[in-house]
């Protein structure tokens, strides 16, 4: 008698589990079908933000971005973020003017390269304490950029295999798409 009830219980549990996994499978299977329903939005206007840092990879990045705009259409904006060192002692004064001047020069160089390609680009210069990736993400969100183009490795020459820290920050935190150029 006890064995009978036990068997019934087990059977009930097994069918219950099957039913449950069936429901799970249904949930998983449904979104795949929705691929067919999604319309491709090829009319969307791209607003491309190109992060430049004056490193040796910059020229290639700008050239790539120009080619991209020629094909995809849309606008091009160059951004450079001056990384101001985070001070441990607040009373230590840091003069960021030379870095700002360098940043302006980097942007002008990149802008000139864009113009040589027969295109136009706006420029943005920002300051950020610590990792400049956060600033790039913030600007992209604020101004509604649809794509960020950047090189995986910028100023640091050590990390060829891994992503640069700025690139990593942008890739993880940006809410728009990110195109990462590799060496």
């Amino acid at each position, binding site marked *: 008698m006890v064995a009978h009830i036990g068997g019934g219980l087990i059977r009930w549990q097994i069918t219950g589990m099957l039913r449950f996994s069936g429901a799970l499978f249904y949930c998983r299977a449904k*979104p795949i079908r929705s691929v067919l329903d999604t319309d491709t939005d090829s009319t969307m206007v791209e607003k491309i933000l190109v992060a430049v840092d004056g490193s040796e990879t910059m020229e290639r990045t700008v050239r790539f971005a120009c080619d991209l705009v020629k094909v995809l259409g849309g606008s091009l904006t160059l951004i450079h973020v001056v990384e101001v060192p985070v001070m441990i002692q607040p009373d230590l004064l840091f003069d960021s003017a030379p870095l700002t001047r360098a940043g302006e020069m980097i942007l002008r160089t990149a802008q000139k390269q864009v113009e040589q390609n027969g295109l136009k680009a706006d420029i943005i210069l920002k300051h950020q304490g610590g990792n400049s990736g956060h600033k790039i993400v913030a600007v992209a969100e604020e101004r509604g950029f649809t794509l960020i183009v950047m090189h995986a490795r910028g100023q640091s020459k050590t990390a060829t295999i891994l992503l640069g820290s700025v690139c990593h920050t942008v890739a993880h935190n940006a809410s728009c798409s990110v*195109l990462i150029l590799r060496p």
Partner: protein
Amino acid sequence: MSTLFQRALVPVDGSRYMSGVVAHAIAIAKKTGCSLTFLYVVNVDPAATLELEKQKESSTRIPEECRRKAAAEDVSASSRIEVGGPAETIVEIAVRERFDLIIIGSRGYSRLKTLFVGSVADEVMEQASCPVLLVK
């Protein structure tokens, strides 16, 4: 048509985030004239042959569905299934067959989610030798 991209590799996983990536890839293919290869990687220990065949069979429709969707929009596309670790397989194929773009989805809505499920995209970004488009 431009020569910016010729062939793009689009890894797909059948998740609900896939449709956005596929739509994005098709939009890019239309504009650049590149061909798309939808890749599904079966992540199973190759020793488990029985399991593997079963999983391969059930997942055929995932990249195939994408290919059909692209073909319906006059984009030249193919689909394929490979077995192995997702990130390594994607990177290896991209290198070996000289793809010039990888279009991959990221589920980076929250940092926690990125930490858990965006790991394939993360590894691909770090190891690829061609440009990677991370679609959000």
